[in-house]
């Protein structure tokens, strides 16, 4: 099966920013599913090195995001009106609450136009686009309750929209080798802008797609400082774009695999159908790490996070003041990078004022916390949208105390202590209870490690996606173009026309066999063509499956994606709470 893996990031991870796409995750998935042929499509942030990754056989296609607008001419005069119409639809969806539905059509029309002449970036920077944006933005009914857009906002918003829509100009749409239309399915890792090419491939070529999100992507957009610097109208417009893009992605995706129940709630809130969501926990590479050795001699709490209000180091310090009142020998080690200027100094001042300066040590948290130096691990964050840190802590085999926010409950479950956020008394009580009971400490630590090893191993992830991939393509017609019949008729494709193994049979030869199918010849596509090809030695029908008839297939494909995908729970799904407690 040919899988197009779409994600943000660069081949060489240049820094912490580029790692959020879960680069290692993609590698693990490709290693685990070696029977499939993967192609990696990367949306590279500006300033990232473009290169090939060593030792990776998968083909890598890269497209730069952000940065300077690519050179090029605007559309010809007679096509400009079509551009304007599509752009107007898109912008209307962004600013008129009653017109949300026109987002998808506008987006796909723009993608289609951009694919034909590649004039989209220049058009979006032109005066025609600005006039369109202004006319819609200042029309009655536009949501400008907290501020009317000024001319400056118009320019900035137009510029940012152009950057957001840049993936539409990527040279990936088509049915040739190395293009998205030639893949059997797309797998979007991370959502956000990376989902744009998959959406377009789905609309133009009927390729189904899976979306894997590590932490709700939309939430990150709302949180990011990137938009916070703009005036209200610009921020509203851009967040509207992010939200509508997420909603459209969740609506069109065949299967959604968030990495937690918390992520599932976000996706459902944004309009994802519950039956298409399957929670697949993110596999942790460190599952096989040896547990931490003997505990330190003094009763030691280890706090991990970032020194910023969101991770609430102050809560830990205040709780520790109470712990020390009862247990004067207690020590606290704070592992955390500074989240902003003056944050570390502020924490030190708070520790000083609470009279803790001799018992608290601030450690350099850049290499990750040294879990073995603590007896009890504490996370006091106000939000936890990703299970990574918790899982890492649990894998150390020490008892964990965490605030009950975000993913904490489902990750820790009965194998740790949960306390309400922003409550120093509760946190101090939990810490004291664990510090004073070594048997319970060891028991919880062991249970936590086992729980994390069971749920966050890499193997369940590969198994889950092997199933999802097969389930997805088996539910799709082998010859979507043939099944769709003539234009305008209802689609009558057969969902189980081919068994699942049929799709696995194709090797690398399949790509070569299908290369010579012209992408604009619908009459050359169909079962007859497919059977003829079978005589050439290539796997039957793969050529036909690849070269579908463009948008006509999209409806049928989506129909079957919706009816067939989803359903069963993965082996990695949440176990019954308490089952582990019994095992312990």
């Amino acid at each position, binding site marked *: 099966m040919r899988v197009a893996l779409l994600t943000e990031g660069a081949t060489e991870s240049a820094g912490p920013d580029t790692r959020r796409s879960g680069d290692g995750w993609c590698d693990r998935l490709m290693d685990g599913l070696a029977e499939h042929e993967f192609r990696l499509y990367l949306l590279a942030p500006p300033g990232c090195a473009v290169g090939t990754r060593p030792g990776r056989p998968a083909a890598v296609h890269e497209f730069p995001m952000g940065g300077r607008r690519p050179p090029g001419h605007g559309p010809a005069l007679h096509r400009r009106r079509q551009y304007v119409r599509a752009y107007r639809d898109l912008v209307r969806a962004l600013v008129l609450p009653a017109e949300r539905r026109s987002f998808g059509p506008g987006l796909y029309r723009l993608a289609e136009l951009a694919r034909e002449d590649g004039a989209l970036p220049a058009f979006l920077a032109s005066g025609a686009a*600005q006039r369109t944006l202004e006319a819609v933005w200042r029309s009655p009914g536009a949501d400008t*309750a907290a501020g009317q857009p*000024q001319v400056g906002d118009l320019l900035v918003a137009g510029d940012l929209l152009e950057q957001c829509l840049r993936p539409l100009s990527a040279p990936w749409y088509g049915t040739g080798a190395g293009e998205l239309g030639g893949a059997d399915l797309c797998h979007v890792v991370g959502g956000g802008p990376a989902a744009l090419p998959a959406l377009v491939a789905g609309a133009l070529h009927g390729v189904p797609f899976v979306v894997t999100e590590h932490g709700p992507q939309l939430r990150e957009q709302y949180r990011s400082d990137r938009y916070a610097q703009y005036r209200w109208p610009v921020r509203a417009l851009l967040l509207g774009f992010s939200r509508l893009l997420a909603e459209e992605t969740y609506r069109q995706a065949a299967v959604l695999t968030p990495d937690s129940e918390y992520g599932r709630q976000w996706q459902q809130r944004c309009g994802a159908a519950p039956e298409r969501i399957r929670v697949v926990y993110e596999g942790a590479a460190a599952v096989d790490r040896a547990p931490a050795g003997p505990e330190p001699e003094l009763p030691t709490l280890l706090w991990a996070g970032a020194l910023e209000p969101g991770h609430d180091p102050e809560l830990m310090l205040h709780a520790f003041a109470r712990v020390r009142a009862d247990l004067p020998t207690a020590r606290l080690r704070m592992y955390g990078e500074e989240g902003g200027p003056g944050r570390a100094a502020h924490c030190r001042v708070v520790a000083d004022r609470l009279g803790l300066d001799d018992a608290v040590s601030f450690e350099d948290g850049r290499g990750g916390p040294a879990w073995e130096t603590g007896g009890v691990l504490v996370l006091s964050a*106000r939000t936890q949208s990703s299970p990574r840190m918790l899982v890492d802590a649990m894998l150390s085999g020490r008892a964990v105390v965490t*605030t009950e926010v975000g993913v904490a409950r489902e990750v820790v479950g009965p194998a740790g202590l949960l306390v*309400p956020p*922003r409550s120093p008394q509760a946190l101090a009580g939990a810490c004291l209870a664990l510090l004073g009971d070594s048997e319970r400490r060891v028991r919880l630590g062991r249970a936590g490690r086992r729980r994390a090893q069971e749920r966050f191993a890499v193997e369940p992830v590969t198994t889950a996606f092997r199933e999802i991939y097969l389930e997805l393509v088996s539910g799709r017609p082998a010859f979507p173009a043939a099944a769709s019949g003539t234009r305008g008729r209802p689609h009558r494709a057969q969902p189980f026309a081919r068994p699942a193994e049929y799709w696995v049979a194709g090797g690398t030869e399949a790509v070569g066999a299908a290369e010579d199918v012209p992408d604009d010849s619908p009459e050359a596509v169909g079962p007859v063509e497919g059977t003829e090809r079978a005589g050439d030695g290539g796997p039957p029908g793969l050529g036909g499956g690849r070269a579908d008839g463009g948008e006509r297939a999209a409806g049928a494909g989506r129909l079957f994606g919706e009816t067939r995908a989803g359903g069963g729970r993965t082996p990695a799904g949440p176990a019954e709470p308490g089952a582990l407690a019994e095992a312990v």
Partner: protein
Amino acid sequence: MSRPEESLPPTAQAPAWARARAEVPAPPGGQEWEYPSVPVPSGDPVRELMERYRALCEQAVDPLDIAVGLEEAGLGRIEARRYRQADVFELADELYARVPRRPVVAVPAPPGSSWRSRTGRALGSAVRYGLPSAVPVALRAAAPVVGLPLLALALAALGARPVGAALRRWSDSRPGAGAPDARVASGGSGGSSVAARLWYGLGAGVLLGVPVLTAGPVGAALGLAAALGMGSVEWSADWLRHAAGLGLGSAGTLSAFRARMRPVLPVALGLHLALLALFSFAALAVLTALDLGSEAGAGLLAGAAHRASGLQWAAQAALGLLLVPAAALLRTGRSRTAAVAVPTAGLGSAVFTAVRAPETAQLLCCGTAAALLLPYAWTVLGRPAAYLPDGPPA
């Protein structure tokens, strides 16, 4: 009737640990270091929440924005239940519905270029162009016979001037990666490339150098005045950008912005022409005073005014009319036009000088270029897109 709690001292209501903390004196500077306790909800609990997160709710773009803000503040599903909602999303929905959006308090306009910095740049420009022009003029005044080496020296000075200026500006503009908004209305050299600025500087150098080196004393004096007037060109172009930056922040629509920008270029031109006339007149007055020597008296001003012919005044004005729109275009993302127009005019003027008088050549070339450039610049500079360079900083 007062409730029994109200008669108690405030510390008596607090729990034991909070009482102990309350006795510690507050830190200097009013810094909060007591961990803020979670207030207990009462009658209409959501009202308290509305008060606490009023700013968040008023500025939210949609309910999800509020939900994210609440989550960031540590409110989870449990707290939402306390407020009789199923989850944070529904709580955010309620808050979004109950708190009206309020227009943002006007953010102070982007600083743009201050009057002081613009004047500083203008003075710098006047010195950069004026000094190299003054050297050959002074030498010609001291030694009437100009040797070839002297000419070569002057030309080298003229050539070095724009190169140095461009290099300096380039090094100034290198670390220009600010917030994306700042690039819209910041002063200085907008989005022009080094090559464009180099060409513009070279063209201006030739245009100024031709009269200084080849014309008679009156022409040289006018050339010197025009070189000093480069400061005024710089100032006018910067002021135009500044006005556009203000317009971007205050104009509501594209047409309002265009209407606002319509008189700006003519005013900038008028400003520059007035200053140029002043400089020229001063230069001519100095020349007249030197010529007349001590016998000069009441006839100085009248003599200065009649010193230059009408043709020379017209050539001077044409030079001014060409340089201001070119300098403005150079700063607004259309640098290529300026980089073509000015050197072309310079080259034409240098060539024509061989067959005609320098002032005729200057009037012809600068006048033609200005006649072509002015309508174009007036149209382009009225568009807001001109003030957004074609691409954000990397």
